[in-house]
């Protein structure tokens, strides 16, 4: 989009008026040419058209000079050239930036791949470690369970033995209590006396 200043607008308006006058003159000339003979008329018409064209050119040149259209165009060309150079520099800068970013992106990709590899390696090591620990823990639990079972079996055996002994002793006490008489008591005391006498 090209923005026109106030002076530029005036010049464009003047140029338009001049063009309008030329076109009007040209039209009158064409209208005047229809009254003569056929060949002469065509020649005259050609001359008029030529003159008319010459005027048109002159007027155009004058008008263009008056309105400084050449300067405007030159300035405009210069602006466009500068804009092109500017755009070129910006393009180059953008391309450099693009290359930098592309390089960084490549580096980032490399780093990303390295980080991923590192994480994979660490994850693998951690996995191995966890598995090893879990195996060791499982081994310990099994060993502990074995020891617990052995202990429980021993305790159960001892408990059963105690119960059997208690029951046997209780049964023996009942039998002895039922069958022991005065003679047995005398014999027991006699044994006691003998043992005491051995202590003398």
């Amino acid at each position, binding site marked *: 989009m090209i923005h026109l200043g106030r002076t530029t607008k005036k010049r464009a308006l003047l140029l338009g008026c001049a063009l309008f006058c030329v076109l009007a003159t040209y039209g009158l000339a064409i209208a005047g040419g229809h009254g003569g003979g056929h060949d002469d008329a065509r020649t005259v018409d050609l001359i008029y058209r030529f003159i008319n064209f010459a005027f048109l050119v002159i007027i155009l040149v004058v008008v263009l000079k008056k309105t400084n259209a050449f300067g405007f165009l030159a300035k405009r060309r210069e602006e466009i050239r500068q804009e092109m150079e500017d755009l070129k520099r910006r393009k180059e800068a953008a391309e450099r930036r693009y290359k930098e970013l592309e390089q960084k992106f490549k580096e980032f990709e490399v780093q990303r791949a390295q980080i991923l590899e590192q994480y994979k390696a660490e994850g693998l090591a951690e996995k191995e470690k966890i598995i090893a620990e879990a195996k060791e823990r499982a081994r310990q639990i099994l060993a502990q369970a074995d020891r617990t079972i052995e202990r429980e079996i021993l305790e159960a055996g001892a408990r059963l033995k105690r119960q059997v002994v208690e029951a046997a002793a209780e049964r023996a006490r009942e039998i002895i209590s039922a069958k022991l008489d005065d003679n047995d*008591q005398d014999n027991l*005391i006699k044994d006691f006396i003998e043992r*005491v*006498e051995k202590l003398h």
Partner: protein
Amino acid sequence: MIGSKISKRYAKALLSIGREDGNYEEYGKNLREFADFCTSSPEFYRVISSRIYSGEERGGVLDWALEKSGFAPVVKNFLRLLLEKNRIGAIAEIADYYEKLTDEIANIARAEIITARPIKEDTLGRVKQALTGLTSQDVKVQIREDASLIGGIIVKIGDLVLDGSVRAQLEGLKESLKRGEYT
């Protein structure tokens, strides 16, 4: 512990007097009789040993009992002293220790025999003879029955305990079985 020490002091003091006048055995019997009376008459014992009552009231009750007794004057005065010093409550302990002291003087050992069944006289005599041989002292026995022994006897002389009961033998057998000595 403190009360025990004080009781021993009182018992030794009375024994000292008794040995001087040669009547320590009589004093011991009087003390034992009074201690047994206190045990069999808890109301009397409560009155003379409780500080709820005044000294005069307690003294009056004690004098009333002593007048009816045939105790030696020394023993009567000793009991009045105990009342005055508020030690009459330890009379049983004092009497026990006095007996122990007199037993030592007379070379007597007191034995407690615990039996599951009544013991015949001749059997008891043989037991006493055996214990006399063991302690080299004249043995006086006190018999107590305990059916839980099942059979046999237990003899206690001072700190010495001789267990000849069936219960002890069964316990020993039981412990041996538990230790697996018969497996």
